[in-house]
């Protein structure tokens, strides 16, 4: 059953939620929007057509986080995970879908990551569909879409003066108990908007068979060609909602063992103690990034490890575009031509 949330009631509703959740919403900070705790009197920012710069995965896998605290005489203890209830308001469907992909990494039967798990369990996600999809996004190409429901507890459609609210889980239903039902006309208008948004997004590249192309061309000069202008800055992975690699370091002076986001685009990432590096240049590192998303994820969970959010395209300092890279990959031969 769909509900109607008048925009001028939003502040009241957010205030109500704040009574028993820490509410996160997109807010302006310097030149970008970020998911930040919503304080009394501040308003969420939706006017930017695109998404927050840092994906909300950072609220579940923080950029830097202590795993252990060192105690006296060489001892150590586990750092407790954050458990207070949270509500993320205005998360975009690509980012919510990314969380479901990351669940398959962090919530495995053996070795569940308690930090990820407790944060996920304590958080409710209210999504905002993209009625004006961003220019660099290609969610529809990779099996998602501007109104993808994956991972969300409720999704909002912007109807101008009001939001149409579609609750998707029990957790989501509990948030919107006071609202009126949407009329048939409002439902129809939302459906039209959602369909129009989907249809406005062109197919960025052919997804069918991309894994086979990348696998067959593991030793192809293609990787050298597409990585030639790469600076190795790592921003494509840092801002990627599905990248999850991390480093673990001992911060001796702080007395903590910390995990920090890491990136396969850095040389030291795979550098071994002997000096050997399986991925010595940006050629191998670019191959790892693309193959991970478009081949290895597919092997592991039968899903592409990219939700088409478009951040890697938007923020690449030299304008490298994963869509163009994959279009080019589709031109490659399907058989192995180069020895491993």
């Amino acid at each position, binding site marked *: 059953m769909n509900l109607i949330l008048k925009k001028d009631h939003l502040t009241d509703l957010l205030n109500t939620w704040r009574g028993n959740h820490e509410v996160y919403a997109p807010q302006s900070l310097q030149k970008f929007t970020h998911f930040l705790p919503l304080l009394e009197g501040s308003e969420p920012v939706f006017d930017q057509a695109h998404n927050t710069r840092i994906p909300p995965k950072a609220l579940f896998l923080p950029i830097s986080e202590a795993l252990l605290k060192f105690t006296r005489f060489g001892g*150590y203890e586990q750092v407790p995970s954050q458990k207070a209830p949270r509500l993320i308001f205005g998360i975009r469907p690509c980012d919510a879908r990314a969380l479901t992909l990351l669940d398959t*990494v962090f919530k495995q039967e053996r070795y569940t990551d308690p930090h990820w798990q407790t944060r996920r369990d304590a958080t409710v996600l209210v999504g905002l569909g993209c009625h004006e999809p961003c220019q660099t996004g290609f969610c529809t190409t990779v099996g998602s879409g501007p109104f993808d429901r994956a991972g969300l507890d409720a999704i909002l459609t912007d109807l101008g003066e009001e939001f149409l609210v579609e609750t998707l889980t029990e957790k989501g239903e509990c948030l919107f108990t006071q609202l009126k039902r949407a009329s048939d006309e409002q439902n129809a208008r939302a459906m039209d908007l959602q369909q129009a948004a989907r249809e406005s997004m062109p197919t960025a590249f052919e997804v069918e068979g991309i894994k086979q192309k990348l696998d067959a061309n593991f030793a192809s000069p293609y990787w050298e060609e597409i990585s030639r202008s790469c600076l190795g800055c790592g921003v494509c992975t840092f801002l990627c909602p599905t990248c999850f690699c991390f480093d673990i*370091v001992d911060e001796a002076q702080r007395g903590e063992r910390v995990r920090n986001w890491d990136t396969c685009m850095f040389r030291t990432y795979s550098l071994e*103690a002997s000096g050997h590096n399986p991925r010595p240049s940006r050629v191998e590192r670019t191959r790892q990034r693309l193959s991970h998303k478009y081949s290895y994820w597919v092997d592991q969970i039968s899903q592409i490890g990219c939700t088409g959010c478009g951040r890697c395209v938007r923020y690449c300092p030299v304008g490298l575009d994963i869509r163009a890279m994959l279009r080019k990959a589709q031109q490659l031969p399907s058989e192995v031509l180069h020895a*491993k």
Partner: protein
Amino acid sequence: MPNEAKSPYLPIPMRVLRAYYESTDRSLKTLELGFDDPQDARDFFAAFNPGQFCLLSVIGKGESALGVANAAWEGDFVRFTAQKMGSVTTALHALKPGDPIGMRGPLGNGFPLEDWKGKNLVIIGGGCAFSTLYALTKHLHHPSNREDYGKLTVIYGTRTSGLCMYKQDIAAWHQRDDMEVHQAIDVPEQDWLHHVGYVPDVVKEVKPSPVNSVVVVCGPPIMTKFTLPALVELGFAPETIFTSLEKRMKCGIGKCGRCNLGPKYICKDGPVFSLAELNALPADI
């Protein structure tokens, strides 16, 4: 910490029981660690399989992945041999009996010992990579395990005789009638009674039979690279050739991302792979 699941990043509290140099040049040191809590020992050995590894924690320095070098029947301790390379292994070399140390594990799959039952085993090792093969050989030496397997052949090469690990034990293996041992060094030395030459050449000389046999190869990449084709030439099928891989690791449980070989993580899906499995994976090593 009430109601909080135990973190897989939380090391088991251990203590150094014994620490001794393994090689005459003091680049290799063996640590034998005891458990602070007997329950941890029971949990560890209930899960342990030769070929697995652990992450040793020196608090304030970090973690280092090392193969387990003992069999469960040897006692309630875990043995590792570390080559002094970086800051963590240097700190490991400085540890003395009684010092506390953290350990996460056992991690990885280990050798598929169930599948190998009834077969002849050929164990080929080079340098300090022999540690998990030592654990495997020790495991097989236990009478209740030995009868499950056929002929046992060990080929172990090091650059010099001084770099050979577990010297006393291996010297004793030559006297055993239930196994064949071939030791090798790269260049001749006075009083050396065994093979002289690189491991792939020694393998060609010893010519282990592929009939009803499996072979395990662990060594430096250059040794593995030339030993695998020699074994294929001797008639070993890729499904019967096993090796243990290494890459840089952080988490050890398939989350931090860096030790992948295509869709497989060496820490979680390995470190032991058959050549048939490796042939299907990208050569990203």
